[in-house]
């Protein structure tokens, strides 16, 4: 009883301070509280800042790739050069190689300079060097597509050399070309004159999105299109294989599997496979699909198989989660009206889980689309993917690149003009990933049911 303090006695602070004034210790504790909270805010701010920096870098460096510098020239397509016999036979026109077109472009460039009244001390060859090495091939493709143009004079937009392109985009300046063999100050003067004349300008570069990769010397002609087809072919393989196998495996594990050590092993296996480094899957693909089964090197089919094995755990994990979220009462009701276990799963549980499965599959596909490391080992880099496949079978079996592999390939080349391509490629890749994830989020919002 004597432990109870006398309520009438005033509560004295042992340190003799007022309740209304914080003492030193409380101040320290409150300051520590504020600091701790600040650390958290700073950490999040750093994370978000990094994200912004990354996105800003990608956008600021990559948008250039979607524009390209072209020069408009009027080219007389001389019949005696391009179609000697004059019978417009496509097979004969095809015999004229790009070397046959080069003099035409060169002459057209000279005429242009003379017409525009630009004074220059450059020799015709040095002038023509401003054009891309791809210019003659460009003209040839145009003529092969429309042989009836032979004999007339056409206005044609030629790609310019990547240095000229860089000059217009600010990547190349008069100071930076001091040691550059590919361009000199006199040529840049000519470029300035052509810009003033209005015949040399930057415009949208659709070829970057639809075109094929080009060799080291022609960064201005390189595009992502063929690599994109390679990626699509791989995604097709992943979708066709990983979705049914993943769903089947999850149905078994979630609905039928007895609780025993075999099931345990399978489950541990799946969660471990989800964390195995992707390059290990590349080694597996190389050893099994290429060295043992002799599937063709660099084929999107092999890439698709490797990515399937890699994506399966992701799909299985998300499918199991959505199967689990279907309430047991649905199963019980189906069994109650006489359905078999298998019927209750396939007729009732699976359709209800479908939106969740689809969302998980899209996210798994997006992951597979951005994966690079395994593709390096099965040979999807190191060559120039120049010809778009002509059929689905060829798209699967013929060597091709893939979007991330193409970006890696460009990042390895020494010319800074390819770096711009690589960043531009990243923009395309991210557009795909963002739209896939957005579709997944929309599907989830639209169809997800809370029981």
């Amino acid at each position, binding site marked *: 009883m004597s432990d109870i303090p006398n309520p009438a006695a005033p509560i004295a602070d042992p340190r003799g301070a007022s309740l209304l004034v914080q003492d030193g210790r409380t101040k320290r504790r409150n300051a520590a509280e504020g600091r701790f909270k600040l650390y958290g805010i700073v950490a999040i701010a750093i994370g978000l800042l990094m994200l912004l920096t990354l996105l800003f870098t990608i956008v600021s460096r990559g948008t250039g790739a979607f524009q390209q510098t072209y020069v408009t020239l009027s080219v007389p397509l001389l019949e005696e050069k391009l179609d000697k016999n004059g019978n417009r036979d496509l097979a004969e026109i095809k015999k004229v190689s790009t070397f046959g077109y080069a003099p035409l472009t060169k002459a057209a460039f000279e005429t242009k300079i003379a017409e525009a009244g630009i004074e220059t001390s450059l020799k015709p060859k040095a002038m023509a060097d401003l054009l891309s090495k791809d210019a003659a091939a460009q003209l040839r493709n145009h003529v092969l597509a429309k042989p009836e143009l032979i004999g007339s004079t056409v206005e044609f937009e030629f790609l310019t050399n990547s240095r000229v392109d860089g000059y217009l985009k600010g990547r190349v300046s008069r100071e930076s070309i001091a040691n550059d063999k590919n361009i000199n100050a006199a040529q840049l003067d000519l470029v300035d004159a052509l810009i003033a004349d209005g015949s040399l300008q930057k415009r949208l570069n659709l070829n970057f999105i639809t075109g094929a990769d080009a060799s080291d010397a022609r960064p201005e002609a390189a595009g992502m299109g063929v690599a994109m087809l390679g990626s699509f072919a791989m995604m097709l393989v992943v979708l066709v294989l990983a979705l049914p196998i993943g769903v*089947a495996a999850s149905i078994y594990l979630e609905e039928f599997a007895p609780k025993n050590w075999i099931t345990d092993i399978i489950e541990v296996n799946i969660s471990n496979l989800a964390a195995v480094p992707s390059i290990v899957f590349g080694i597996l693909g190389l050893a099994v699909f290429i060295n043992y089964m002799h599937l063709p090197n660099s084929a999107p089919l092999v890439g698709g198989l490797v990515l399937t094995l890699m994506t399966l755990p992701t799909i299985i994990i998300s499918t199991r989660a959505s199967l689990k979220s279907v309430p047991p009462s649905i199963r019980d009701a189906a069994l109650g009206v006489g359905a078999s276990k298998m019927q209750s799963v396939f007729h009732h549980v699976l359709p209800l889980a479908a939106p969740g499965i689809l969302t998980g599959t899209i996210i798994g596909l997006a992951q597979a689309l951005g994966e690079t490391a395994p593709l390096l080992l099965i040979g999807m880099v190191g060559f120039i993917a120049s010809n778009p496949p002509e059929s689905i079978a060829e798209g699967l079996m013929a060597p091709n690149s893939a979007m991330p592999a193409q970006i890696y390939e460009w990042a390895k080349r020494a010319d800074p003009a390819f770096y711009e391509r690589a960043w531009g490629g990243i923009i395309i890749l991210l557009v795909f990933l963002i739209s896939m994830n957005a579709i997944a989020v929309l599907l989830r919002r639209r169809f997800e049911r809370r029981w």
Partner: protein
Amino acid sequence: MLPLVIVIAALALGGYFLARRRAMISAGGDSRKLHSLPSYYGYNAVLSVAVPALLALGIWLLVQPMLVQSSVVEMIPAQAVPEGSSVNLIMSDVRRLAEGLDAAVGAGAVSNEEVADLTAADDLRAWLAERGVAIGAEVSPEVLQAAQAYREMNALGHVGRNVFVLLLALAGVLLAYRESHADFRARNRVESAVKALLILAASLAILTTVGIVLSMLFETINFFSLHPWTDFFFGASWAPNFRGDSDLSILPLLWGTLYISIIALAVAVPIGLFAAIYLSEYAGPKVRATAKPLLEILAGIPTIVYGLFALLTVGPALVKIFGRGEDGLLGVDWMSGATSVLTAGLVMGIMLIPFVSSLSDDIINAVPQSLRDGSFGLGATQSETIRQVVIPAALPGIVGAVLLAASRAIGETMIVVLGAGAIARISGNPLEAMTTITTRIVSQLTGDSDFASPETLVAFALGLTLFVLTLGLNVLALYIVRKYREQYE
């Protein structure tokens, strides 16, 4: 092969209708008298046609090349193998020649009889080139003979395969047709078959793991038979030399891997952990709903993007600070190239922030509210509660999250391939370029690799080491996390 699959599909479809019709007839047209729904009799026919036939086809496709290969290899006399070459290389010549001949026949350039009459005296290379097939090397008589045998055996095998598979499919139709009777328990049969397929799909996970381990194990054993294991595990330097006699020690690579991972974790763990604490303990629902998904975007960005970011943005920025002598920001010249341990480590750290933060966030959220309330009741401030109650309670889970992040860091490839450099060395200077296990796997296995040289095979030993390392970390992390979860449930 495609026509064969189409024929099987057609037989299966036909079997479906035949079996269904027969079952209906046997029940006198009244489906209530059947044991199962009519379509199950049809499905039973489909399964008994397609499953054995496709299975046989798959096995045949796997086994035939092995049998043909081994019997053709026996035909090649030992003296036909030139010095410095191997039977495998000869076999790939044989295969290429046989494929070339097949392509020429397929294109209609020659007939099968003409091919059989070929002798090595003809200039085969020019002869094939004329018919639109290019082959690399000159053809020796032994190779031609082997290629002819290879083609013959393959042709025989194809005929045998088609006949066998078709007979199997027909037998399936017949069997299912005869079985289809009102009393036949078609549904039970179909359902157990479907269940078997489901089990097969589930065991693919085990098959993949076994495939990974075996494919690397065999090549690793080959590697250790060509190269002393003591040098691999305890040697001091990594200097592959394609003329042979290389130093292939994992230690410098392991050092580079661990150094970069440690820097990455030093960036990711504090930032990720504080972000997780703020998001789960302080942030309001609105901040949480925006900041959390935004941070998680960092985890969804492909690693090639981070690699490029390291090589072209972070690396040059670091050089500007630590390098270039008088022109640099610090006026020192410690860093010469954009690739370095610090470059790769920093960028990898950014990538790992969301791994640490979302895993820790989940774990901190799982700490029961009663622990916090108890602490608040004793007069602790929020930060004191977090530091002294919540974090200790969540510590095993956080350690698990950090271990998972470490396993990601060790296995990460693209960032280090582009950002870390290619020089294998053991040094403490984070501004120097170093190399990692994953980069060396990529460089040893890309390009023209000869799978009989230790310089190529070492990649499999490295891969196995990497697999074991990350598997160990994952198992440990999962074990810790699981053990912790049991405490509060």
